[in-house]
């Protein structure tokens, strides 16, 4: 509104010739030739901080009338949008129409509603939600990752056959599990999956910015394979299942491909190799809640 612009707010834009007199009081004098440039540059509106200093919580220094004067509300009077109401009153669309009707003794015309009432009201206002509403399958779940776990972080595994070992984090897989590697030569931990919850993230990071992890390392690659084809052989079921896990050649090549890149970066940091070789343990007087990892 016009009143706001006059009320000393520091808007350099849109100076009209009528307000040039007030412009003399302002510290910066702007040339009329720069008007157009200024009008294009729109400054975001800056609101003044509270003009009522706080004496104690909930108690201001100035009274209502003093604040009225301080905020210059006598200049800022807004009129209600009356014209719209008047317009609405004028421009309301017709609710009924009179239509001619044929036939004898019918009265000649009928008053017909333009917008008719609905002929059916459903018994429920909002359609009932399915029992499975909001329940997503596992593949569509949201995967979260702790902020402390970034690619290259050294993690301490807490469960599994590699518990206590310090390991390098590579990436988070589609199911949310973490892809992790020893590297193998350092602590005999291969490319493996680890669960976020059973891992301590240390603040030590290895720079893995340029390392390329092959794309075929997905959850399906790491999933345990089980053969189950009974085929009416009740006595020999235990033989067909894999008893011993055999390391495939593909796993070995993938391990080498990833580890060679990471080992080069580990060697750059002094003592990091020895650190990854060591295991984590608690002893007397060591309290995990007091340790900074």
């Amino acid at each position, binding site marked *: 509104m016009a009143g706001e612009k006059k009320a000393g707010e520091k808007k350099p834009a849109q100076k009209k010739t009528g307000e040039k007199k007030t412009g003399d009081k302002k510290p910066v004098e702007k040339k009329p030739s720069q008007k157009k440039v200024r009008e294009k540059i729109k400054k975001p509106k800056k609101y003044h901080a509270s003009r009522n200093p706080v004496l104690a919580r909930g108690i201001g220094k100035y009274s209502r009338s003093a604040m009225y004067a301080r905020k210059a509300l006598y200049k800022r009077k807004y009129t209600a949008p009356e014209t719209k109401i008047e317009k609405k009153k004028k421009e309301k669309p017709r609710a009924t129409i009179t239509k001619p009707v044929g036939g004898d003794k019918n009265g000649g015309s009928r008053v017909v509603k333009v917008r008719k009432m609905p002929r059916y009201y459903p018994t429920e206002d909002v359609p009932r939600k399915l029992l499975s509403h909001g329940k997503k399958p596992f593949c569509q779940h949201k995967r979260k990752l702790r902020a402390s776990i970034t690619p290259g972080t*050294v993690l*301490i595994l807490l469960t599994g056959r590699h518990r206590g070992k*310090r390991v390098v984090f590579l990436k988070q897989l589609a199911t949310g599990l973490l892809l992790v590697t020893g590297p193998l030569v350092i602590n005999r931990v291969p490319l493996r999956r680890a669960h976020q919850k059973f891992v301590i993230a*240390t*603040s*030590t990071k290895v720079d893995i910015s340029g390392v390329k992890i092959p794309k075929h390392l997905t959850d399906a690659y790491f999933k345990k394979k089980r053969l189950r084809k009974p085929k009416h052989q009740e006595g020999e079921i235990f033989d067909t299942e894999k008893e011993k896990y055999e390391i495939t050649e593909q796993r070995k090549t993938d391990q080498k491909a990833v580890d060679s890149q990471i080992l080069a970066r580990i060697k750059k940091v002094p*003592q*990091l190799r*020895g*650190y990854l070789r*060591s295991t*984590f343990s608690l002893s007397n007087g060591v309290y995990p809640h007091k*340790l*900074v*990892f």
Partner: protein
Amino acid sequence: VFKRFVEIGRVAFISFGRHAGKLVAIVDVIDQNRALVDGPCSGVRRQAMPFKCMQLTDFVLKFPHSARQKCVRLAWEKENINEKWAATRWAKKIEAREKKAKMTDFDRYKVMKAKKMRNRIIKHEIKKLQKKTSKKVKKTEKKQK
């Protein structure tokens, strides 16, 4: 018996409260329990502070009682209290404690390795000295025989 006294200009270390860990100078004594205190070079506003939370240091500044902050600051900077404090064993112990608490897992490993190496060197020297003395004892025994 007592070496450090509460006096005008005594620099005190605040042990607990909002300003824990900072140094202040005692500007005036208010009553039995409180002093008017000011720490212009340590970020403590001029205020009343109970003696209980203050621990006296060895440093004393020279300024008259109820001197204003500017005078306290001049005296503080003339005596170079901040540098003198950092050089004291007290401040170094505090710093060492803070560093120890912030140690990460990797730091702990490095400390363990350093300690191990240090102890090994020490033991090596001790063994060398032990060998020397045992040789000497053997020599003197032989001579006596």
